[in-house]
């Protein structure tokens, strides 16, 4: 799953349409949308709101490992044009003075730049980079739940030194995000692919569930059996299609010893 955290509904509406996200009515504390790959939560403005929506989303999804996270929203910028999208490569929180460095492991579809998270709207544009109000709260929280590479912040410039901050209408906010859907979709795909590749590595090996149905295994034995099945599969993927392995396995010890014998007989080659 990828969870997208956005401050305002007007920013999120282009994504809700694009990904045909359905409102999850069972969730009452936040506006929460979902399809089979993506969750989207409307956090409200500010880093505390963003952090708590992130934590809440993680919890209601059953805290799965290898989740991907994307914060999308508006930012001011010293000199980028209004409407320009950028990915944060460094996030600094002005009040706590903490810094994070998102790890971007794909060729980004846009510029990357540093981002300062402030507690109150700031129109001074002192930092040579972007300014927002959510990223540090989001990032600090999401990066507790997954590996750094799966947590990204994408911002669209809503104001800059030349056109300083004014109140943006909901339509303007929607339009700014709408125009960046290609970039956003690219990021969504990259994060989903990386997440998928990672979680596929840790799926239970073939035959494991069947074994668990037949033999009662302690936690340690489960790990040992998984390890043997993984090895056997790597050495000879066909070996695990032979259900005869499971015949007459009355205990975990016997099964482990059978698997060890089969593993020892496999050919070791590097084609």
């Amino acid at each position, binding site marked *: 799953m990828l969870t997208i955290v956005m401050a305002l509904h007007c920013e999120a509406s282009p994504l809700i349409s694009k990904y045909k996200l359905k409102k999850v009515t069972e969730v009452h504390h936040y506006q929460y949308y979902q399809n089979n790959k993506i969750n989207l939560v409307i956090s409200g403005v500010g880093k505390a709101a963003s952090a708590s929506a992130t934590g809440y989303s993680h919890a209601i999804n059953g805290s799965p490992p290898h989740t991907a996270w994307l914060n999308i929203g508006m930012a001011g910028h010293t000199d980028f044009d209004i409407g320009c999208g950028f990915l944060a*490569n*460094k996030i600094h929180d002005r009040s706590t003075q903490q*810094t994070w*460095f998102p*790890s*971007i*492991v*794909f*060729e980004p579809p846009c510029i*990357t730049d*540093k981002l300062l998270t402030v507690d109150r709207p700031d129109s001074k544009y002192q930092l040579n980079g972007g300014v927002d109000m959510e990223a540090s709260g989001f990032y600090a929280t999401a*990066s*507790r739940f*997954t*590996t*750094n*590479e*799966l947590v990204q912040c994408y911002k669209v410039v809503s104001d800059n030194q030349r056109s300083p901050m004014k109140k943006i209408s909901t339509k303007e906010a929607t339009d700014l995000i709408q125009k960046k859907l290609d970039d956003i979709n690219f990021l969504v795909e990259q994060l989903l692919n*990386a997440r998928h590749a*990672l979680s596929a*590595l*840790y799926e239970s090996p073939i035959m494991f569930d069947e074994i668990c149905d037949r033999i009662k295994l302690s936690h340690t034995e489960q790990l040992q059996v998984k390890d043997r099945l*993984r*090895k*056997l599969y*790597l*050495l000879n993927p066909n070996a695990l299609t032979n259900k005869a392995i499971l015949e007459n396995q009355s205990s975990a010890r016997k099964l482990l010893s059978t698997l060890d014998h089969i*593993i*020892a007989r496999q*050919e*070791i*080659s*590097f*084609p």
Partner: protein
Amino acid sequence: MISTIYIENEICDHPVTRKVLSRFTNVNIIECDRYTEIFNRKAQNFRLQKKNPSLILAKKHSGFVLEAPDDYGIEGDNNYYFSHMLNCIYDCRYCFLQGMYRSAHYVLFVNYDNFTEEIGNKLKSHPDEEAWFYSGYDCDSLALDPVTGFADFILSFFRSQPKAHLEFRTKSTQIRSLLKSDPIDNCAIAFSLSPENITQVLESKTPSLFNRLDAMKKLQQAGWNVGIRFEPLIYMDDYKTHYSQLFSTVFDQLDADQLHSISVGSFRVPKGYFKNMVKLYPDEKLFAGPLEESDGMIAYRLELQEEMLTWCSQQITDQAPSCHHYQCRN
């Protein structure tokens, strides 16, 4: 292709930093206080990062030159190693670095002077003895040399230190700077070689055997000492076929009489690193092989290790009888 460079604020204006940056166009530069903020942080995935590693330019503060592990040196008693870089542009599946570091980014320590200063101090502590210094323990010595220019720098120091011996350990063909300078007797360039199938399957992004041999020949012809490291030996049922092909190709192409040294060594990794490696690459066949733990190290079963080392050593002795330094290490 490096697209992001992190730079510690303290060394933004260091001459090496400026020189390195001049080699790049179109990179994102991100300033940081200490490289450890990026390199050592928790919750990073080496495997994902390896797809697009960044370069981190940093200053090293201590531990410039360390005593080499017992089985590392092949010469005298005074063996040291140093690493001007952490991590490597290649992606060998057996490499212990992927189990040792949380990050796959490359760290380059730009304060080169401190390395030579510390090597000088070590030499002073052995006034009448020779000492060996190995580069390329935590990286490949030459792979990023066109960017770092480190080989030139360190060679200029060793040129005036006849009692100090330098070894570059590499799989790289980046030998231009070596070919441009005059060879020195107290430096050897040791190439790690594996059978073709292992290079293809387990040594991702490295130059082919053919290209490594070509680089070795050029260096030999230019008068440099060239060594061979048949390490790590990888077990396969038909290892004799693959390794004998390797040995015949190598000794066909190179002048064995001129070789500085040859060594062989088994695949061995500290248990903790190995666990990390398996966690990162649970789909790697190498780790499903006949390995076992002994004294905190993961290695092939002892009888297999010995069989391979003995057989390979014999083959090498038969094919390169005159190579004056030959050590069998396990």
